C-alpha cells in the first residue's frame, strides 16, 4: 500500500455534505491526473544519435538544397511555420547566430512547413533572414524527422549525425544552440 493510495483513501473516506464531497472527487481526479503525468517519461525521439535522414527540398532562391551536400559543415535544421508564435521570435535569433558563425562552417536550413510556400512570406516579409529557406509543403521531411513540436531544431554534425533535437522554442534557447555549435566546432 503506497503513500499515494493512502492519500486517496484518506481524502475519500471523510464524511461530508454534497459540495464538499464534490470537492473530494475533483481533488481525487486532480491527484490521479498529476500522479499519472508525473509517472510518464518523455518519449525519446528515434532519430537522436543516428545518421540524419537525407532530404532534398526547393529553396527560396529557386534551386534545390540537399542535406548530405552540407557534409563537412555543422548544420542547424529548423522546422517552422508562419502560424507558429514562437517561430516569430526564433527567426531573428537564428539570423544573429548565422551572422556570427556562417564563416566558421555553420549552415542554417530553415524548413518551412506551411501547406503553401507563399504563406512563409507572412513572417519573411517582416523578418530579414540571410540563411536558406526551404519548403516542405507536403510534410514529408517533417515526417522523416518525426517532428513532434513546432518549431523543432535539429543539430547535425560534420559527419551528418544528429546530435541535438530540440522541440519548441523559448526565449534563451538560442544560447543552448550556440553552446552546442561551439562544442561541435571543437570536435
Amino acid at each position, binding site marked *: 500500500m503506497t503513500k499515494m493510495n493512502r492519500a486517496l483513501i484518506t481524502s475519500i473516506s471523510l464524511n461530508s455534505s454534497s459540495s464538499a464531497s464534490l470537492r473530494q472527487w475533483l481533488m481525487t481526479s486532480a491527484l*490521479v491526473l498529476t500522479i499519472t503525468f508525473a509517472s510518464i517519461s518523455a518519449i525519446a525521439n528515434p532519430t537522436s544519435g543516428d545518421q540524419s535522414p537525407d532530404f532534398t527540398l526547393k529553396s527560396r532562391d529557386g534551386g534545390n538544397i540537399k542535406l548530405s551536400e552540407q557534409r563537412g559543415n555543422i548544420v542547424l535544421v529548423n522546422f517552422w511555420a508562419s502560424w507558429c508564435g514562437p517561430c516569430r521570435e526564433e527567426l531573428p535569433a537564428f539570423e544573429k547566430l548565422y551572422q556570427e558563425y556562417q564563416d566558421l562552417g555553420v549552415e542554417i536550413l530553415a524548413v518551412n512547413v506551411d501547406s503553401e510556400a507563399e504563406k512563409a512570406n507572412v513572417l519573411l516579409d517582416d523578418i530579414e533572414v540571410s540563411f536558406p529557406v526551404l519548403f516542405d509543403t507536403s510534410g514529408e521531411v517533417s515526417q522523416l524527422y518525426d517532428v513532434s*513540436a513546432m518549431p523543432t531544431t535539429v543539430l547535425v554534425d560534420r559527419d551528418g549525425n544528429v546530435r541535438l533535437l530540440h522541440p519548441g522554442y523559448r526565449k534563451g534557447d538560442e544560447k543552448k544552440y550556440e553552446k552546442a555549435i561551439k562544442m561541435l566546432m571543437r570536435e
Partner: protein
Amino acid sequence: MHMRLLHKASIRLLVVACIATLGSGCASTFESINPLADLEPWVKPYERSNLADPIMSMNRNPVALAYAKHVFESREGARGADGGAGGGCGCN
C-alpha cells in the same frame, strides 16, 4: 439492470487497474494493460495550420466574450459550463 451491473463491473476493473498502476508508479504497466498504448497523435504539429487560425479560437476576444457571458447569466436561471474565464458578478 444488466447495464448497471456492467457499468459497475467495468468501473470496478478500471479503478483497481488504475490504483494498481499508480501504486507501482510505473508508466510501462499502463502500456502492458492498455490496448491503446500504441496510439500516436494523429495530427502532427506541422499539420496544425487550420487549428492555429484565430477564427478557430474558442476565445477570440476575451473582453467581449466575458461581457456576453455576463449578459446571459444575469437574465437566465442557468449558470456554469459556458466557457469564458471565471469571475464574480454582483447582480441585482
